[in-house]
């Protein structure tokens, strides 16, 4: 009982321990805030990619695409692990306005909007036709004309808070999309003056996937139109990818594995087909692998942050160690007194480890409370900083976020708090052991000097 009493008194009465508590609190605060924000950004980014891609993709890097996609989709739809599948054409095109010299390259995506909306969250990302997504390719002013859905970053500019300003009704304007149609062998499909395919589209809607690189470069048009522009209209017709959504209860890994096996069988079945050589370039990937190139840098950023804060945690161990050495040195007399009163070695060790434990608990409580409080108001704080000092910590346009992620994960809080307490115990262990091993007579003599 004396251990608990004295440990609590040391914590309350010794000002030097407040420094240890403060060191732990600051460490907990920083780790909690950074980990919450970075994890939130990563999760949000992953979620956006997942929603944009679907669960898995059968895809090829070739601009030529691959044939027989329709047959494979039929096979997919017959399985019990696929909920929906949608073919997609991907190619590059030049965007230009008639009568203007201005142009820019874009990534052209041909989709069958009905099936694509079942596989991805495309329909939810539309602005004007969210409720009536089947008409997203129909310009309101002329529903018979060919419409195109543009990435929001191509038609609107974002405010510093990450929101886009749009007019109440879709603006009426037309533009040309020009592409090089390719044969199955990768050669230009046409010769002479008609070497390119060009078609006029009217703006019919914009889409905000939340992925900056997608929203500033992608234009979506109906699947068959894209096939024509890319030269994939056959025969046999070709597609660049099949996006797939799994049935409920099917994990990404499990579903991807099943589809890879199904695809291998499909390739074998079609090995004698005229364009079978294109099937060899096709691969089956989960959404995460498909978007690896953009997810990995953010993952690395988060890992780097964790590593940096891991180093801070190590520094905290040394701060605690130094503080505890000082406390033990200061408390040498107490150790001698307690031993002269019959306190055992283990009891002295427990006393100082208990003191370290209380230091860790106090630091964790303060750091966690401050961290949660800060995270709850982080967006207001940042808004205030922006309004008063024009300072923005996270560029909303770069991360394509409207709010800084601030949802605190209970498990993360518990792990950080436990780690902080463990750090205190580790930092205090050596000085505590040293204290426990001290000879009572020596400590009492030292105290007399």
């Amino acid at each position, binding site marked *: *009982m*004396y251990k*608990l*009493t*004295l440990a609590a*008194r*040391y914590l309350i*009465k010794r000002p030097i321990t407040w420094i240890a508590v403060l060191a732990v609190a600051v460490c907990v605060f920083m780790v909690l805030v950074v980990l919450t924000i970075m994890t939130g950004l990563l999760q949000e980014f992953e979620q956006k990619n997942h929603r944009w891609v679907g669960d898995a993709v059968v895809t090829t890097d070739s601009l030529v695409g691959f044939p027989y996609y329709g047959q494979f989709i039929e096979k997919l739809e017959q399985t019990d692990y696929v909920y929906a599948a949608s073919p997609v054409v991907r190619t590059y095109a030049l965007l230009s306005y008639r009568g203007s010299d201005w142009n820019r390259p874009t990534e052209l995506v041909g989709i069958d909007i009905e099936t694509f909306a079942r596989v991805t969250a495309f329909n939810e990302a539309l602005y004007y036709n969210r409720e009536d997504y089947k008409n997203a390719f129909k310009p309101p002013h002329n529903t018979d004309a060919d419409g195109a859905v543009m990435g929001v970053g191509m038609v609107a500019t974002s405010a510093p808070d990450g929101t886009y300003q749009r007019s109440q009704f879709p603006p009426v304007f037309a533009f040309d999309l020009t592409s090089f149609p390719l044969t199955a062998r990768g050669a230009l499909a046409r010769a002479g003056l008609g070497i390119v395919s060009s078609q006029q589209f009217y703006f019919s809607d914009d889409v905000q996937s939340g992925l900056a690189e997608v929203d500033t470069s992608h234009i979506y048009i109906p699947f068959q139109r894209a096939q024509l522009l890319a030269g994939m209209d056959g025969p046999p017709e070709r597609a660049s990818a099949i996006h797939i959504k799994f049935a409920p209860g099917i994990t990404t890994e499990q579903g991807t594995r099943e589809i890879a096996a199904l695809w291998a069988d499909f390739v074998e079945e079609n090995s004698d087909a005229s364009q079978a050589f294109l099937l060899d370039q096709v691969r089956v990937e989960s959404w995460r692998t498909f978007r690896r190139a953009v997810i990995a840098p953010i993952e690395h950023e988060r890992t780097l942050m964790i590593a940096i804060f891991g180093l801070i945690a190590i520094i905290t161990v040394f701060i605690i160690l130094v503080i505890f050495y000082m406390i033990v040195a200061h408390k040498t*007399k*107490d150790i*001698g*007194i*307690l*031993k*002269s*009163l*019959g*306190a*055992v*070695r283990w*009891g002295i060790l427990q006393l100082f480890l208990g003191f370290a434990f209380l230091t860790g608990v106090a630091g964790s409580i303060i750091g966690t409370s401050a961290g949660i409080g800060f995270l709850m108001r982080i967006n207001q704080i940042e808004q205030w900083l922006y309004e008063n000092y024009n300072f923005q910590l996270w560029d909303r346009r770069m991360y394509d976020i409207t709010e800084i992620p601030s949802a605190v994960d209970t498990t993360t809080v518990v792990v950080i708090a436990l780690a902080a307490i463990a750090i205190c115990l580790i930092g205090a262990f050596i000085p505590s052991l040293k204290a426990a091993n001290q*000879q*009572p*007579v020596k400590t*009492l003599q030292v*105290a*007399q000097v």
Partner: protein
Amino acid sequence: MTDNSKILTAHKIHKTYRMGAARVKVLKGVDLTVKTGEFVAIVGSSGSGKSTLLHILGALDKPDSGTVKYLDMELTAARNGQLNRYRNKTVGFVFQFYHLLEELNVLENVYIPTMVSKSVFGWFGVRSEAKKRARRLLEQLGLSDRLKHKPYQLSGGERQRVAIARALMNKPDLLLADEPTGNLDSKTGNSILKIFDELHSQGQTIVMVTHDDNIAARAQRIVALQDGVIKGKNKCAPLK
């Protein structure tokens, strides 16, 4: 006092300290016997080894050779657990510099030996009784109005009285005092010695270390320590 049996026996105690490269022989074969109820004063000049001897008798230090026996228990061969219990239950220490715990108040400083001997649950079983005894001791020593004071709020004499109360808390067989008045003025020191006289008259066995012959004269028996050995014939006073 009727029982004159040996309570503590030290036989051929040797102790050497290293001071850098030098080795200082502090005790060179000391023999000492303390009987139950005796008030023994160990006198000697500074560096004569009297405090070292007291620490060895109280199991705060170990001799290089020789034996110390408390009744039938040989302290020099005892395990750590036995020594801890000996320090907690059998011996009460009074130091020159009081050695109170600054974080605790007077009352807590007095009952801490009982806390040390008990687990958390064990302590809750005896807590009220321990507090009652600590209050009684402090009352007897004239400190009933200082229970909640911190050691730094007390005078030297008051601190020493708290230290005596703490030493008596677990009703020890032996009270070991190392220069208990060494840090006090003569008037206050005299009041402390009166407490020792009173305790002795109640049958408490006391071993006190002092360099002052006048203070030693208050004891029933004087043991003179010089250059690590007991010198001359010990003065013995009749048992009170």
